[in-house]
C-alpha cells in the first residue's frame, strides 16, 4: 500500500498503541490478580499498586495439584494435535496435490464437521463413550477433539500446500520415484513449516477447549479450563485461584502468538488471508 507522510504515521502508531493497550490491559489486570494480596481485591476504588506475592500460586499448585491438571491438558491437547497431524497431513497432501475425484464434496464434508456445535455432538458422544467406557479418559478426549481440529487442520494445510510450486510431483516421478516416495521425500519436507504453523493452531484450540473436557472428562482427566470453571462454581468464587489458573493457560498461547502471529491470523481465517 501507498505509505504516506511521517507525522501521520506517528499519529497512527500512537492510536494503534492506545488500542493495543485497551485490548491487552484486561489481560494484565487478570494476571495482576494472581500476584495481588487477597485483602486488596475488594478495595474501593480498585488498587493499582501493591507488593506482588506468590502465596496464591503456591497454594493453587499445592491444593489443586495443578501440575496434574497441566499434565492432563498437555496430554490431551498434545495428543489430539499429534493425532490430527498424523492423520491430517497425508489427507491434505492428497487433496492439495493429487488428482482426487469429488474433491469439492470431500472438502465440504470436512468443513461441515467443524460447524457442529460441540454441545450438540456431546449428547451422542456421552452415550457412546459411556458404552465404550471412554468417559473420563485421555484417549476419549483426544478423539473427541478431532471433531473440530481435524477440519481446521486439513482445510488449512490443504490451502497452504496448494501453494507449493506446481509440477513438483511430475518432475520427481520422472526422476524415478514412486508417488508415495514423492510424498515422503518431496511433499513432507516442503510441508513442514505449514505443518508446524497449523499444528500450533490446532494445539491452541485443543488447549482452550472447554465443553468436551467438561462433559466427557472427569476427575482423572481434568484440564485447565475445567478446573478454572470448577473454582468458579463451588460456593463462592476463588478469585485469586482463577487468576492463577488463567495465567497458566495464557502463557503457552502467548509464546506461540509471539512467534507465529501471522500464521495464526491466517489460520483463524481458514487461509483466507495471507496474514
Amino acid at each position, binding site marked *: 500500500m501507498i505509505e504516506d507522510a511521517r507525522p501521520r504515521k506517528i499519529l*497512527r502508531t500512537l492510536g494503534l498503541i492506545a488500542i493495543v493497550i485497551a485490548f491487552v490491559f484486561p489481560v494484565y489486570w487478570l494476571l495482576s490478580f494472581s500476584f495481588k494480596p487477597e485483602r486488596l481485591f475488594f478495595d474501593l476504588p480498585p488498587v493499582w499498586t501493591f507488593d506482588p506475592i506468590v502465596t496464591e500460586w503456591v497454594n493453587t499448585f499445592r491444593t489443586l495439584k495443578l501440575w496434574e491438571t497441566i499434565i492432563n491438558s498437555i496430554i490431551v491437547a498434545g495428543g489430539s494435535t499429534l493425532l490430527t497431524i498424523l492423520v491430517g497431513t497425508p489427507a491434505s497432501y492428497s487433496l492439495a496435490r493429487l488428482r482426487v475425484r469429488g474433491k469439492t464434496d470431500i472438502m465440504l464434508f470436512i468443513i461441515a464437521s467443524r460447524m457442529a456445535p460441540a454441545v450438540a455432538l456431546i449428547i451422542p458422544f456421552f452415550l457412546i463413550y459411556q458404552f465404550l467406557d471412554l468417559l473420563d479418559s485421555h484417549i476419549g478426549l483426544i478423539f473427541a477433539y478431532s471433531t473440530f481440529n481435524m477440519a481446521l487442520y486439513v482445510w488449512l494445510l490443504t490451502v497452504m500446500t496448494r501453494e507449493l510450486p506446481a509440477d513438483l510431483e511430475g518432475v520427481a516421478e520422472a526422476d524415478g520415484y514412486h508417488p*508415495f516416495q514423492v510424498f515422503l521425500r518431496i511433499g513432507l519436507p516442503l510441508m513442514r513449516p505449514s505443518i508446524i504453523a497449523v499444528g500450533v493452531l490446532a494445539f491452541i484450540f485443543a488447549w482452550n477447549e472447554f465443553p468436551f473436557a467438561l462433559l466427557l472428562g472427569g476427575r482423572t482427566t481434568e484440564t485447565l479450563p475445567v478446573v478454572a470453571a470448577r473454582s468458579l462454581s463451588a460456593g463462592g468464587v476463588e478469585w485469586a485461584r482463577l487468576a492463577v489458573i488463567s495465567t497458566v493457560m495464557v502463557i503457552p498461547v502467548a509464546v506461540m502468538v509471539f512467534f507465529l502471529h501471522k500464521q495464526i491470523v491466517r489460520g483463524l481465517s481458514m487461509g483466507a488471508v495471507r496474514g
Partner: protein
Amino acid sequence: MATQGIAAALAPRGRWAEFLQRYLPYLLIAPALILLILVGVIPFAYAIYLSLHNTFFTDVESFAGIANYKDLVSDPRFWGALRVTTIVTVVAIPIQLVMALGLALLFYRGVFGGRVLSPLLLFPSVLAPIVMAIMWKIMLAGNWGILSYWVVERFSLVTGGVFGSPSPAIGTVIAIDIFQWVPFLTLAFYAGLQALPLAPFRAAAVDGASRWQVLRLLTIPMLYPLIAVLFLLRFIDTFKIFDSVFILTRGGPGDSTTTISYYLFRSVFEFWEIGRAAAAAVIVFVLFFVMTSIVYRVFHKRLRLI
C-alpha cells in the same frame, strides 16, 4: 538424513507399487475420512436415532416417532434459546466486522513497530474463551471490579450488576464476543487491505475520486470475498457460543442468556431429557449445515477456499 533412510525403507515394490500408485490419493485421505466419520457422522446418526426414542436418564427406551420434535417445537425455552442466539449473532457480528474494518482502514497505511504491536493485538483473540470470560468476570464483579467501579456504578448504567437483569446480561455476552474477535478481524482486514492491487487506487487518484468514494466503490467491493469468509467463520462460532455463558451467567437471569448450546447442555446434564436434546441438536445441525452450504456454494468461486 534419517528421513531418507525411512523413506527408502518404505519404498513400495513390485505389484504392490502399482496398486499403491493407483489408489494413493484415496489411501492418503482415507484415515482422515474414517476418523471424521467416527467422530462426526456416527455421533450425528446416533443423535438422530436418540431423537426418535424415549429416554430415561441415559437409557434408551421405546421408539417415540417424532414426539421429541413435537415437544421441542412446543417448548418456549427452545424458541427462547434460538431467539437469544440469533440476537447475539445478529448484533455481535456486524458490529465487530465494522469496527475491525474501521480500525484496519485507520492503520493499513503503515505504523511504526508493527512487528511488536500486531502480535500483541492478536493476543485477545487466541485466549481461551474461558479465560476471556474469567477476565471479564473479575472486571465486572460486584462493586469492586474495575469496570463495575469506574464505569457501571459511576455512570449508574445498571443497578444490581450487569448480570442482574436480562438486557445488560445479553449486552455483556455480546460485548465480550466483540472484544475477543475485533483484534483478529482487524489483523485479517489489515492483511486483506495490504494484499489489494494498487492499480485501481492509482487510477482513482488520477480520476480525482474522494476518499469516501474510493472506500465505497473500490476498497469495500474488493474486500467482499474476505468479508464473506470472515462473516461465515464468525457466524459458525458465535452461533455455538457456550463458554462465556457458562462462566458468566449460567444462562440467567431467567433464561435471558440461554443460548442454543447452553440450552442443549441443560437439557442433557440438568434435566436429562436426552431424546429431546438430541432432537434439538439434530435441528441445530441441519440448520447449520443448510446455511453454511448455501453461503459456501454462493461464494465458492469468489472465496477461493477450494
